[in-house]
């Protein structure tokens, strides 16, 4: 186990990344997501939070991504399908976690195996949806700022209407 010392004398122990080499390919990503989302805030100690965050990035870089790539670039269709199924599930819950596979989607969309293409398409759609959501949030923020400026008389009605139209077009 990897051990992290808190200032109050307590400890946090996390499994060694070497042990993850034997795991199902999608599991390191799920583990990283779990620690980031559910555990890190509970540790309270800032130093430990930072150290664990660095360790999690190390797992992502040294284990999770290389393992995913080796499967997605490999010839074993069954293994690729199984990995993509879990990645698709993960992409619905937390799209950010599945970012490392994005560069490989184009090749997978041209794959000879229909199931692989279908799964790759679903993941790709989830990325598109997520991108649109992000873009919409950005435009909403701009629109809200422009609204404030318009009400304060700092910009014209036309300028505000243009920003609002941009936002509504994307929303539709």
């Amino acid at each position: 186990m990897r051990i992290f010392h808190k200032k109050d004398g307590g400890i946090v122990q996390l499994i060694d990344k070497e042990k993850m080499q034997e795991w199902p390919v999608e599991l390191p990503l799920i583990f990283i997501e779990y620690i980031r989302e559910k555990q890190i805030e509970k540790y309270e100690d800032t130093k430990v939070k930072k150290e664990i965050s660095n360790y999690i990035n190390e797992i992502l870089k040294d284990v999770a991504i290389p393992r995913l790539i080796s499967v997605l670039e490999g010839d074993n269709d069954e293994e690729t399908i199984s990995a993509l199924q879990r990645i698709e599930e993960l992409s619905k819950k937390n799209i950010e976690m599945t970012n490392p596979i994005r560069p490989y989607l184009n090749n997978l969309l041209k794959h000879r195996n229909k199931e692989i293409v279908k799964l790759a398409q679903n993941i790709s759609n989830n990325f598109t949806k997520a991108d649109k959501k992000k873009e919409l949030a950005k435009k909403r923020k701009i629109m809200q700022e422009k609204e404030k400026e318009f009400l304060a008389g700092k910009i014209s009605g036309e300028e505000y209407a243009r920003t609002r139209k941009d936002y509504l077009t994307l929303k539709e």
Partner: protein
Amino acid sequence: MAKKQSKRNWDFKAAKDLFYEYLEKRQEKKKINLPPETIQIDNLNRKEALNRLYNLTDSVIEKIIASGRPTIQLPSRTSTNIIWDEENDLLLLGKQLQEKQFHSLSSVADITRLMRVLEAVNELLVKDLHATKREIFYSDVKLFGEQKNSDKSIEDIATMLYTTRNSTHIVASAKGSCIGRLRIRDKSDIIDLEGLGSGGWTISPMLDNIEILESDAEFILVVEKDAAMIRLAEARFWRKYPCIILTAKGAADIATRMFLKHLSKDLKLPVFSLVDSDPYGHYIHSVYLRGSKRLSYESPFLATPNIKLLGVLTRDLDKYKITKEGRLPMTKMDIKRTKELLNEDFVKKNKAWHDDLSLALKLKVKAEIQVLSSHGFEFLTDHYLPEKLTTGDWI
């Protein structure tokens, strides 16, 4: 002892000191060297177990071809072949062998049952499945007759293969439970043992699927009874005092012992036990500590030699002012079992433990963990355990 306890802030100094001691020790990687007069048992993965099984059947076939009178040798599990290894504080199996013959009339049923179980183990390993001892019995009721026969063959197969029973994928039914500051993996599922309600996680007998992922616990507490576990769970004891709590709900079953061993080995935390103050409770502690005689061949994988007996000690009865009504008289069987425990080498070598059992024998009294609730339901969680873990009052 007043029922209204003032709420103190316990610092758990003694338990923390032990925890720091373990933290320092984790740097020294100590390999257990078993005495030369004992046999070596290995925990095997599926592939290794299958290889051993094939080697065994090959040797039987070779003997059939060569002599027509095949035999199988396996380590004897009789009491004369059980050795207490003082250095590692474990009960182990010696090198005496017994021979099972295929060609005598008296051994026909025995050997047929053995081969039937071997066949079942092969199927389980090939298909990567697990079966309970009960399922093995029901796989051929006519042949086994009674479950004790199939159980015996299961243990014979494990010793014949020089491996643990879990390595054969034959498991005991789930019995124990665990709760507290621990996150584990069961195949592809991550389980948070803090978020499963008051009942906690039922310890899986398929421990080869379980892996420890994360923990911020500082000690492990093993409780004999479910009632004490409920009290601790209701108080969310682990939130205030970072720990992992587990119980086998009575006698220590294989899965619970193996899981405790796994926790203690991976996390290297101090382990304490809380049992009834009677010979049965002390025996349960001894089984966690150094293994049982029946499964002595598996002791290195089941025993937790650093476990401390936190309570309830006979000396606690006066210290915590347990009334006469709360103390139960020992039965003849209790007296007999206490004397038997006092005669065990591992008790004789532990003065504090010997003294406590001698005191119980002198006073001829016993008490249950629940007797502590005579001082209030929260006495166990708010005073007894914190005080003991602060002062280091354990054996």
